[in-house]
C-alpha cells in the first residue's frame, strides 16, 4: 500500500525533497525574488512541455520546437516594437502562432503520411527552420518591444507574474483537452496501441497531424512569451527548448512508449528541471552543467520509468496468482 502511494507521489516527493535540500543549502532559494524568478522560468518550460507531453503521449517526439519558436517569433517580432498598436500586436501574435502551426503541420505530414520516424522528421525541421531564421535575421537582433507586448512575459497581475498565469491557462487548457475531450481519448488510444485506434474508427494519421500542429503552435507561443520577457528576438533563441521540454515530460512520468502519463506530472517535471537549474545557479555551479544534467536526467528518468513499469507488471502477475489461488480455494 505504502509502496504504491510512494510510486504515485514519488515525483512530488522528489520535488519536495529537492526544494528542502536546496533551501537548506542556500537561504537565497526561499526568498520571494528567487521564487518569482523560478516561477517565471518554470512557466515558460511548462508551456513548452505541455505541448511536448501530447506529442510523447501519442508515441512521438518533437526536436524542432526551439527552431519553430525562433523562426516564428523572429518573423513577427517587428509587430511588437515600441509604438505598435494593440491591433498590430494581436495580428502579430496570430501570425506567429500561424507560422508555428504550419511548421508543426509539416512535421505531422512527414511523420504520418510519409512515415518518417518522428525524431528524424523533427530533427530535419529543426535544422531547416533554424536555417531560415538565421538567414532572415542575418545576425541582427530585434529588440525594444512596447509595454503592452512586454506585459506578456514580464508583467505582473495581482503580484503574480503574467507568464505564470499564462502557463496556468495553457496547462488547464491541455488538461481539459487531454482528459475531458474526445480528442484527448483519441490521443491516448493512438499512443497506447495504434491498431486498436484504427479498429475503433479513429484515424491514426489524422490524430498525429493534429498533435504536431498543436505542438508547433505551442512552440510558437512559447517563443512569443520568451521574447517578450527578454525584450529581444534573435535567430539563435530556444536551442535548449526541446531537450528541456523532453526532460520535463520524462521526469513527469509520461512514457516514451505512448499512452501513459499526462500534463499533471509534467508540471512537476518542469518544476524539478527549473529548480535544479536554479539551485545550480544559486550554489555557484557553472551554468555550463545544465546541458549535461538535463541529458543525464532524461536517461535516468526513462531508466527509472522502465523499472516502475516492470514493477507494475510484476505486481499484476502476483495479483493474478493470488486471485487464482483464491478461486481455487
Amino acid at each position, binding site marked *: 500500500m505504502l509502496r504504491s502511494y510512494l510510486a504515485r507521489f514519488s515525483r512530488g516527493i522528489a520535488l519536495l525533497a529537492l526544494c528542502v535540500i536546496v533551501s537548506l543549502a542556500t537561504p537565497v532559494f526561499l526568498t520571494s525574488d528567487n521564487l518569482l524568478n523560478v516561477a517565471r522560468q518554470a512557466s515558460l518550460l511548462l508551456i513548452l512541455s505541455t505541448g511536448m507531453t501530447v506529442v510523447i503521449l501519442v508515441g512521438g*517526439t518533437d*526536436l524542432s520546437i526551439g527552431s519553430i519558436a525562433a523562426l516564428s517569433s523572429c518573423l513577427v517580432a517587428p509587430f511588437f516594437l515600441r509604438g505598435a498598436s494593440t491591433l498590430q500586436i494581436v495580428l502579430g501574435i496570430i501570425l506567429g502562432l500561424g507560422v508555428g502551426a504550419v511548421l508543426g503541420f509539416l512535421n505531422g505530414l*512527414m511523420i504520418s503520411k*510519409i*512515415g*518518417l*520516424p518522428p*525524431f*528524424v*522528421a523533427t*530533427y*530535419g*525541421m*529543426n*535544422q*531547416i527552420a*533554424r*536555417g*531560415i*531564421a*538565421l*538567414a532572415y535575421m*542575418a545576425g541582427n537582433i530585434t529588440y525594444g518591444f512596447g509595454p503592452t507586448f512586454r506585459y506578456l512575459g514580464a508583467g505582473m497581475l495581482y503580484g503574480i507574474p503574467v507568464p505564470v498565469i499564462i502557463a496556468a491557462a495553457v496547462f488547464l487548457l491541455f488538461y481539459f483537452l487531454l482528459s475531458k475531450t474526445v480528442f484527448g481519448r483519441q490521443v491516448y488510444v493512438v499512443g497506447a496501441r495504434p491498431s486498436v485506434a484504427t479498429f475503433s474508427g479513429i484515424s491514426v494519421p489524422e490524430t498525429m497531424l493534429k498533435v504536431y500542429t498543436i505542438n508547433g503552435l505551442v512552440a510558437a507561443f512559447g517563443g512569443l512569451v520568451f521574447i517578450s520577457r527578454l525584450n529581444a528576438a534573435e*535567430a539563435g533563441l530556444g536551442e535548449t527548448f526541446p*531537450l528541456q521540454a*523532453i526532460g520535463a515530460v*520524462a521526469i513527469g512520468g509520461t512514457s*516514451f*512508449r505512448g499512452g501513459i502519463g499526462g500534463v499533471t506530472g509534467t508540471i512537476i517535471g518542469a518544476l524539478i528541471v527549473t529548480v535544479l537549474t536554479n539551485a545550480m545557479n544559486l550554489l555557484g555551479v*557553472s551554468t*555550463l*552543467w*545544465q*546541458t*549535461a*544534467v*538535463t*541529458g*543525464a536526467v*532524461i*536517461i535516468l528518468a*526513462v*531508466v527509472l520509468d*522502465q523499472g516502475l513499469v516492470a514493477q507494475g507488471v510484476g505486481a499484476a502477475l502476483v495479483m493474478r496468482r493470488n486471485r487464482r489461488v483464491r478461486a481455487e480455494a
Partner: protein
Amino acid sequence: MVAAIKRVPGIVYVLVALIMGFGWFIPGFFTVSNFLSVIRQGSVLAVVSLGATLAILSRGVNLSLGGVMSLAGVVTGVLMHRGWSIMAAILVGMATATAAGWLTGIVIAGAGIAPFVVTLGMMSVGEGLALVISGGASVPGFSNAFQVLGQGYLLRVPIPFWIAVMAFLIVHFILRDTQLGVSIYAVGGNEDAASLSGVDVRRCKLQIYLIGGILAGVAGVVLASRMNSAHPSGGMGFEFDAIAATVVGGTPMSGGRGGVVGTMVGAAIISIMRNGLNMLGLPTPWQMTIIGMIIIGSIALDALKSNR
C-alpha cells in the same frame, strides 16, 4: 551485402552528377586544393557515419555521436593544454568517448529502452560535459605535432583520409568477417528470429554503441586537430549528417540491410554538397536549410519506398 552493392551504382551517379554540376558552375571547384579540402573535411564525417550505420543496420539509431565527438575533442584539447603528452591526451579523450559509448550501449541493451531516447540523452550529456570541461569556450592552439593528425599529409593525401580509410576497412571487416557483423544484420533484419537462432542480441547492441563511441572519439580528435581548436559544440549536427550519409548510402532506417560501402559514398555526397554550396557563396544559414531539406527529402524518399 549484395543488395548494398547493387544499390551503390545509383548513388555513384548522383555523386558524379553533383561533382560535374558544381564543377560546371563553380570556378575553382576542380582544383587540387579544393579537392583536398573536401577530402579533409569529408573524412571526419565518414568516420562518424560508420558509427551511425552500425546503429541503423541493427534497426537502432545513434544521436549521441556528435555530442561524444565534442567531448572527446575537448578532453584531448584541455589535457594537452595542461601539459599532457599528445599520446596520453588522445588516449584519455578516446577512452572518454569509449566509456560514453559503452554507457549508451549498457542502457539500451540492458534496460531495453528505445535507442533514440537514450542517445538523445547521451547527446546532451556529451555536449554538456564538453561545455563544462572546456569552460564553455573553444580550446584553441595545439602543438604542430598534434595538428598533423588533421592537417598533415601522407603520400600527398591528407592524413584524415587515411584515418577514415582505416576506420572504414575495420568496420567493413567487422560487418563482413565477424560473428558480430552477421549478428548486427540479423538483429536488424528480425530481432526475434535472431534471438531464437542463438544470437546474443544484448551483447550485439552493446558492442554497436561501444564501437559508435570509439568512432566518435576518433572523429572528435581528428576534428580538433584539423580546426586547431576543440570546440564544445564542434560535433553538433554531425549525428544528423551521419544518419543522412547512411540513408543516402542505401542503408534504410528500417535496418537489416545495406552496409558501409554505400555510407562512404553518402558521406562524400554530403561533404561535396556542403563544399559546393559554400563555394557558391551561399550564406551558412541557407546552406543549413537546403542541406536539411535534401537530407529529409532523401530519408523521406527511402521511407516512401519501403512503405510501398
